[in-house]
């Protein structure tokens, strides 16, 4: 079942690549079919998921490279469940709904589709992996399709941005790889068996404190780059700006989550003590990221760059939540990963639509689009409000949980982080004003509104924004047990007296 989620897209990718050149357009629809099938599968997983169980479900554990103690160990729990579903649904949507950019002559639908599918496989693999080796393999391999997508179908100086993206991330992974290998081999020295199995390694806890801290740092280096955590974020605006729309959506929606997910699943899970030790650092960086990225975002002349910086700020919230170590904050962080994927996805989609029509993303050259494209404006507004954290939309749920949870352990930082709420409104509304308000002139006045095809992509995502804002219970109920287990692990080593089920300060007195 879970294996199929990973393998199916690969098979379809191969099939797509083998389509003869003259049927290239058909390849795209074959790819969409594949992605849709995966999406359906992910929904099946969602349906079959046992709500109350905080452990790993639907586990697949087969030997892969027994010589290295590597096993094909997949499983899903509340933390990964919605990321998987998000991935499963986002891919068919963007593949079907977003016309690949690039001039007609250069564009090869087969390559594009195949890369997308491989990207999907990698992302799903990373979210499902319970084996450090498998995770790393997936974590690293996604760079390749993304590199080609940005480089091959991007805008402007896309090859440079793609290279920057690749190398920056790879530098982080370099440390991760050393860390993973070290964890496994140190465990082998202690217990005699070489294994990369997450659960086994986490349970054996054979590391000395200092070693654990160093290894956590190695892990954190990779995840901090991927997330990205301030000050390692500068690849992101470049990558987003030059990337084609679909890649941007996937990058923001899914790939950045590999970083935060990695922190949670591997960094915190394997090294609870070290995670605790370094939590102040990461929380600080997360909060700096929230404020700093927001301030920087206000002055971006490029709409896409602005949204990219907003991503940095949002991921700062997630990092804050994850490292505040309370049930609410971590749950909030997890659900915020999904929320950010959806709402920022919509924003990027719309920017892509604008670019497709106007061939520019420069805010100064746009204006009054609400007049010519009212539906687009409405869609943007909803996603913007979600991004700002307006209650009733999904963004609020995550942000609020993160903040209210973090408040009990990181009071002052939370108060600072909350100012991010003001700043988010400032830069997004200002951008909205400059792009959509005012009187349209020239090409802005004649810009066509959202087409039906584009609408079909936006509507499910917007529905998701609203539904998850009003009734997030089904999501939260599934996330919470897994998060509780994780938080309980940390609490054993936490300097804070935070009861796992969140008693109050009053009770503690």
């Amino acid at each position, binding site marked *: 079942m879970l294996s199929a989620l990973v393998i199916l897209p690969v098979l379809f990718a191969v099939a797509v690549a083998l389509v003869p050149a003259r049927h290239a357009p058909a390849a795209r629809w074959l790819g969409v079919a594949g992605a849709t099938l995966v999406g359906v599968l992910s929904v099946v997983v969602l349906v079959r998921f046992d709500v109350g169980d905080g452990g790993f479900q639907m586990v697949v554990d087969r030997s892969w490279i027994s010589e290295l103690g590597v096993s094909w160990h997949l499983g899903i729990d509340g933390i990964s469940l919605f990321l998987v579903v998000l991935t499963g649904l986002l891919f068919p949507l963007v593949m079907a709904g977003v016309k690949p950019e690039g001039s007609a002559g250069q564009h090869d639908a087969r390559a594009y589709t195949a890369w997308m599918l491989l990207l999907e496989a990698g992302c799903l693999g990373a979210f499902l992996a319970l084996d450090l080796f498998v995770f790393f393999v997936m974590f690293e391999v996604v760079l390749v399709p993304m590199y080609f997508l940005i480089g091959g179908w991007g805008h402007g100086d896309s090859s440079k941005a793609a290279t920057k993206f690749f190398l920056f991330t790879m530098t982080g992974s370099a440390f991760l790889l050393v860390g993973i290998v070290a964890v496994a081999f140190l465990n082998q020295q202690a217990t005699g068996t070489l294994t990369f199995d997450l659960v086994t390694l986490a349970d054996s806890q054979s590391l000395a404190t200092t070693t654990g801290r160093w290894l956590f740092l190695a892990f954190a280096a990779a995840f901090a780059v991927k997330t990205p955590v301030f000050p390692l974020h500068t690849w992101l605006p470049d990558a987003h700006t030059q990337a084609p729309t679909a890649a941007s959506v996937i990058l923001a929606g899914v790939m950045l989550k590999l970083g935060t997910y990695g922190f949670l699943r591997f960094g915190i899970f394997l090294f609870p003590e070290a995670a605790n030790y370094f939590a102040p650092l990461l929380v600080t960086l997360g909060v700096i990221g929230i404020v700093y990225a927001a301030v920087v975002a206000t002055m971006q002349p490029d709409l896409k760059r602005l949204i990219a910086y907003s991503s940095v700020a949002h991921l700062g919230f997630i990092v804050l939540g994850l490292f505040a170590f*309370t049930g609410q904050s971590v749950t909030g962080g997890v659900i915020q990963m999904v929320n950010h994927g959806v709402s920022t996805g919509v924003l990027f989609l719309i920017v892509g639509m604008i670019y497709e029509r106007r061939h520019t993303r420069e805010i100064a050259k746009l204006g009054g689009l609400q007049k010519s494209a009212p539906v687009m404006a409405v869609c943007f507004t909803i996603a913007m*409000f979600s991004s700002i954290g307006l209650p*009733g939309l999904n963004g609020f749920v995550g942000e609020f949980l993160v903040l*209210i949870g973090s408040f009990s352990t990181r009071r002052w930082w939370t108060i600072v982080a*909350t100012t991010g709420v003001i700043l988010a409104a400032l830069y997004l509304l200002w951008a909205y004003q400059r792009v959509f308000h005012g*009187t349209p002139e020239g090409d802005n006045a004649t810009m066509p509104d959202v087409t039906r095809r584009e609408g079909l992509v936006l509507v499910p995502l917007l529905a998701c924004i609203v539904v998850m804002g009003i009734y997030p219970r089904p999501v939260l109920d599934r996330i919470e047990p897994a998060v509780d287990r994780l938080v309980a692990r940390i609490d054993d080593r936490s300097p804070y007296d935070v009861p796992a089920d*969140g008693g*109050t300060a009053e009770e503690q007195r």
Partner: protein
Amino acid sequence: MLSAVWLIPALPLCGVLVLALFGRRLGEPLAGWVATTFVAGSFVAGVVTWIGLLGHDEEHRQVVFRLFTWISVGSFSVDVGFLVDPLSITWVLFVTFVGALIHLYSISYMHGDDRFGTFFCYLNLFVFSMLVLVLGDNLVLTFLGWEGVGACSYLLISFWFQRDAAATAGKKAFVTNRIGDWGFMTAMFLLFWTLGTLTYVGGSGGGLLSASETLTTGTATAVALLLFVAAAGKSAQFPLFVWLPDAMEGPTPVSALIHAATMVTAGIYLLARLNPVLHLAPSAGDVIAVVGAFTALFAATAAVAQRDIKKVLAYSTVSQLGYMFLAIGTGAYVAAIFHTITHAFFKALLFLGAGSAIHALDGEQDMRRMGALRAVLPITATASIIGWLAIAGVPPFEGFFSKDEILAVVWQDNPGLWFVGLLTALLTAYYMSRQVFLVFFGHARWDDPAHGSRHPHESPALMTIPLIVLGGLSIVGGLINLPGVETLGHFLEPVFGERELHLTVSGASQVALAAVAVVVAVVGILIARRLYLRDPVALETGEHPSVEPELLRRAWGVDGAFSAFFGGPGRRLALAAAAFDRSVIDGAVRGTASVVQRTGQRSRVIQSGLVRRYALGIVVGAVVLMVVVAVGA
């Protein structure tokens, strides 16, 4: 009967959905009628609920309806549920009532706008949000409504988005409100952290309201002040008032509904709702009272010099809200709420009247080009005069009672603040008189050849009916809480209990105070009359420059200071941050890359292509290896 409560917000929500999906197809004026119907239905549901609530005895007038659990993680859990008690139902009634009237008015006012349906959709959404705000059974749901009304305010202020001023004003309103939201959220975090719940009534610990009695003074003060930050943002208190005058860029019904009658009173509601916390924090109460009084006076001075008819009303609103905060800070919740209700009536009336005048003059808002409209707009003029007398505090209009009550309570608590209030009352009477004189009396200045010939005529019935209704209410509204009878006070008794500061001054003193207030009002009117109806120049030009200093028109330059800060140092800071990001942080990245690359280029020299150099390299390597081996040994 009480179970109809869910209908109260549900009906406007239905309106939103219907208009969002079919608004365009319904067209004009059907969309407006649909919207109005839903809000009116909501009012009816409110009345039904109210009657149901009256059926309970006083101690049990607090009923919670939980629909479903909204967000629940660990110990944190909030529902979507409604708390029906005298406080919330009071708001529900006047919000839906005034709302329905303004909807009705808008049908005509928005005639011809190509986004007619959208306008009503937003209006309905606003009413829905406002109802959620007041009915929500927990702080988070209140916050949802709080933010919802903010968002609607944003959408409606910038409704005519092609106008830059409107777009900017909308943004400004939202962002300024967000500063308040920061306070709101932080207050929630603090409350949850200390009390473990955000639900007002019921749930663990018996609910927020009863549990908050266990708060320490420090925490309570912090929470109260944070909530006041929130309220100051929403209710335009100093220094966060700056958005409200600009918000007048929105259509006039919006100004009437949102920026006068309802939304801006949300801050009052919030503080009244959390009165147990306030009660524990007397020093916070002092802060609120002082800021309220200051705002009242400050805004009144600014109103004196405005030329835009709506700006006068906007500053007036700020000023009146200051009164309410003065009352809240003093502990006179009922007085504050009483004034909120009366203000809702007369300020809505004034706005709608102003709107009618603007409408008649094809959008003219400058009072210097109005005058003598009494003749051509009889209904509008009559209604506006009623509103003027009400706000000026002339008996027996409703404003007299509510303002008098506040002043009396404040006198009892702090005569200094009372004097500020009195001064404000004087100014209020003055500037409102000025407005009425400039618009409805004196010479007609609208037929300025530069602006073409105008033929103002009375607005259609759809616009005048609300004027008439509100005018009537503005006359008799004082009845709901007549001194001595205090219907409203008794109704709200269960909410505030002994935390309400009751008047203890003697009846004679009360009468004396009232007399002073009336005198002050009359003096204000007379001064205005002297300056604007007896001065030939002022009659001709519609202004009296010596008493309209530029500084006051710019509200003492506070708004300008904000703009200067954000446009100057703030902008520079952001630009610096962006430059820092580009040059330092990304520069470090690019620098590393280029250092690596340059090192590579430079090191090519060692690959000289010369065999003998290579051989030398081998020998050097051999030496190195021998050394390393020796050292290793």
